[in-house]
């Protein structure tokens, strides 16, 4: 079975927030809850990069591990979804998640956070596919219609990819080859102020590499 993943190409992400509003739009996510966000590092400086972050649907999901009521489940596609009817809003999944994916609709004094909400890879929840209940609780179920998450489908620069992990790997690999190979094409001998040498980030090869 295809294992679904997200990948955000930091070389292409321009922090346009299209993915953020596409998700809001498609899933009717209310103010204060953000299933997806764009994080920018080195803001305003050389090496500025952005990444679109939402639930990464981990193989060994920390959220699922720590949930006191075990409301998470993994679908055949490898997606980590949860049952809001079972969720007690304790917030443990939010503590454990490396990506900060779980969101809560209320501010949580006396730990009344409300039901956890997070990116579902536009695959809805345990309710019947595309039913009114599913729509109301979890948002859109695009996967049941054979579509992919809207955030990736609407990404302005195709930085955010979503879909079968092997397909995405292929796409990304091709991009890296494109970028890397083109380094050999640099016939220009002027002094280039290379801005893409941010530490630890893969991307276009620089003069130093």
């Amino acid at each position, binding site marked *: 079975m295809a294992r679904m993943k997200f990948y955000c190409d930091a070389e292409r992400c321009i922090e346009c927030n299209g993915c953020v509003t596409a998700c809001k739009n498609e899933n009717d996510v209310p103010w204060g809850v953000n299933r997806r966000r764009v*994080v920018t590092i080195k803001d305003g400086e050389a090496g500025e990069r952005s990444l679109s972050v939402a639930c990464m649907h981990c193989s060994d999901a920390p959220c699922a591990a720590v949930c006191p009521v075990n409301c998470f489940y993994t679908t055949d596609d490898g997606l980590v979804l949860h049952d809001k009817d079972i969720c007690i809003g304790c917030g443990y999944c939010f503590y454990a998640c490396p990506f900060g994916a779980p969101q809560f609709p209320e501010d949580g004094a006396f730990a009344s956070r409300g039901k956890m909400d997070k990116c579902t890879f536009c695959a809805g929840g345990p309710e019947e596919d595309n039913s009114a209940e599913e729509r109301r609780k979890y948002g859109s179920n695009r996967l049941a219609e054979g579509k992919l998450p809207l955030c990736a489908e609407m990404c302005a620069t195709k930085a955010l990819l979503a879909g079968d992990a092997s397909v995405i790997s292929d796409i990304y690999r091709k991009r890296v080859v494109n970028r890397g190979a083109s380094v050999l094409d640099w016939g220009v001998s002027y002094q280039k102020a290379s801005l893409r040498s941010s530490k630890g980030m893969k991307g276009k090869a620089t003069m130093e590499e």
Partner: protein
Amino acid sequence: MLINHRRVLQLLAALLLLLIAFPAFAEDVASSHKPVTVPNPATDLWRAVNPQQLPPAQAAMFPRGGSQVQGVQSGVLINQQGQSWRHFRMKQLLPTGGYLLAGAMLAVLLFYFIRGKVLIRDGESDKKIERYSVYERMIHWFMAFIFLFLGFSGLILLFGRSLLLPWMGPELFSILASAAKEGHNLFGPLFLLALVLMFLKFVIRNIYQKGDLTWLLKGGGIIGEHDVPSNFFNMGEKTLFWLLIIVGGLIAISGVVLLFPVFEQGRGIMELSHVVHAIAAVIMLTVIIGHIYIGTIGMQGATEGMTSGYCDLNWAKDHHSWWAQRCIDEGKVLPKQQSVDGHTDNPDSASREGVQ
């Protein structure tokens, strides 16, 4: 020492129960997912942005991020502490806490079957001393009720998934856990209140005094010799008090932090609070198992003080001889009056101010 067959059977049953419990949560903790090897292109990327995986010099300089999306720590790419916290809760707290609590229960059971009930040396007398006033008893039971309620609801949240969920089913367990969580959160601050009240009322009598160390070295009279003098509270009780105040205080403070995630505290603080809360709670629960044992079935005459407010004179001489002597000297010993149907009398009917 009385060993009776019924008791042995009970002990074995208890052991059996514990043995079943261990694998249940151990299995859950070990986690049932096998790691799947997937060509995930994201892993390289996430390794690259994970400060823990960068060489120290770079990690120190790792730029913190920002996001247009507002929220506490929305600019953090990876929450490293979440991994440590998960490991703590699932791989350390769960098994260790489980063993500790089960072990404590086993220990008291064993103690009961081996050592048996601690009896009053000379048997019950017909005299009593006022031990605890109404107010003091109210505080104690208030604290007891809160503590047990919080303890049980907390345990449901911690162990429920391994012990209760499998046979209750997800929907029913969710209702129970939700109630536990809501109740735990509602009564939480009351625990703080109870601590304060308890502290104010009992602190004077719990200050360590001469003789406490001796009491400890002599095993408190519960093991071996009987002649271990003590004041109003013996060293064990005093230690329990201070544990309650300090460790319980930690529970309360960390609990308050957890209860109000509205001050923009990040996940790190919440996780740390949870760790402190959990460890302190497990310690307190373990200790309280002993306290409850000794205050109920473990010792003859122990309960009355906290229920009726009076304790038997001989019991007092056995366990708190210095205090007992002071009461005798001050003429605070009262005759026990049996009413027609066998109830002890209402203490209010006797004047508390110096019945000589």
